[in-house]
């Protein structure tokens, strides 16, 4: 059975979706079968990074919402986005699937209005692992603590907690770390993202690790190139030698069996 990896942060704007996409691509490039589920139903976005906002749109296929309403099996909502890998890699065993959340206003408001059975999510994750024969299933979560994110954290083998070097992020992350410990997450890894150049990375890593008594998997620099890419692609494919991409690679090594 494959591993479930949740990528979460207490506050929004920490770069969860970008990190999720880059982790997923890096794993797929190692010939792994990887799935991503966008459980940020209230404010979905990771589909943009994979180009599903152009050409093949979400509207043309099923989304996570359709599964939650019982309109399709969850694997039918999985879009094969292996095309983002370069041709040589795509010819290998690595595969990449994305289950997006719907961007239709009516779908988002329906979730807000009616809610859904969170048990379906758990069933759906397991179904994806089995049917798509995934080695890894990455869950891009909604920021903060709510029922869905708690469920995602509970059933995860690995939890990446993303924070920025910011007082609000630090305090919120302390709450999340505490909750994750109560939920017995087998492997919890902190990631500091969007770190300005003026910071001494190793010192920051040590400070964060000591503060939370947890492993810091990586410290990712704030980069001009990332801002320029503006979610229009997978950063580590565009800039494979960039410190961000190298840190992602190191994070992948920490979660491999």
């Amino acid at each position: 059975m494959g591993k479930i990896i949740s990528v979460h942060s207490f506050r929004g704007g920490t770069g969860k979706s970008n990190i999720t996409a880059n982790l997923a691509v890096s794993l797929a490039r190692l010939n792994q079968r990887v799935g991503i589920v966008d459980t940020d139903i209230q404010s979905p976005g990771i589909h943009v990074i994979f180009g599903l906002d152009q050409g093949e749109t979400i509207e043309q296929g099923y989304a996570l919402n359709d599964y939650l309403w019982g309109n399709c099996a969850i694997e039918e909502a999985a879009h094969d986005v292996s095309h983002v890998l370069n041709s040589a890699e795509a010819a290998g065993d690595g595969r990449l699937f994305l289950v997006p959340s719907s961007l239709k206003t009516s779908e988002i408001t329906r979730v807000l209005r009616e809610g859904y059975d969170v048990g379906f999510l758990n069933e759906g994750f397991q179904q994806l692992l089995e049917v798509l024969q995934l080695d890894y299933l990455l869950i891009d979560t909604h920021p903060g603590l709510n029922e869905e994110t708690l469920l995602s954290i509970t059933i995860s083998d690995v939890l990446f907690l993303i924070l920025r070097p910011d007082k609000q992020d630090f305090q919120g992350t302390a709450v999340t770390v505490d909750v994750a410990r109560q939920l017995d997450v087998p492997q919890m890894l902190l990631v500091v993202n969007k770190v300005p150049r003026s910071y001494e990375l190793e010192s920051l890593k040590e400070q964060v690790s000591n503060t939370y008594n947890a492993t810091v998997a990586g410290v990712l620099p704030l980069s001009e190139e990332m801002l320029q890419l503006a979610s229009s692609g997978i950063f580590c494919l565009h800039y494979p030698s960039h410190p961000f991409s190298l840190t992602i690679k190191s994070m992948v090594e920490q979660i491999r069996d």
Partner: protein
Amino acid sequence: MGHPGHSTESDDQEAGLQHSAAQTDHWEDAEPSDGNQGGSNPVRSNPARSSLSEPQPARSARTNSPIDILSLPAEQRQLMNWILRQRQATLKEITDKFQQAPEALQPLLSDLVEQGFLTLEQDGEQSCYCPRLQRKPQRRLSEQLWQKLDQG
């Protein structure tokens, strides 16, 4: 950068099941005990699995969300966390995992069933504990507002 927030270990983290050393010598698979069966599992039904009994209205009507797991005592929370990851588990699987005698775990599991966190269901010839979680109802907004959003 200012001082980051402090991390606090859960007070009862050390008091959990992993620290119990009671060894399981022999056991039997979960048998429904009187009055402890929950209602039907809201998770999409597995055709091979059927609820063992009719729901008890006073207890099984209660719905718990993942947030409610956090308010459980440490031992029961650890049981719930693990069973959630497994999707379902027999008493043997649970006693093997936590290295405790069935008679030590059975009351905790029965209480979780009674509280509506678990159901005891038949999967083939085995009785399995299955998580039973639901999303809490949302706060109500004006129907007019929803209609407006739907039109959008």
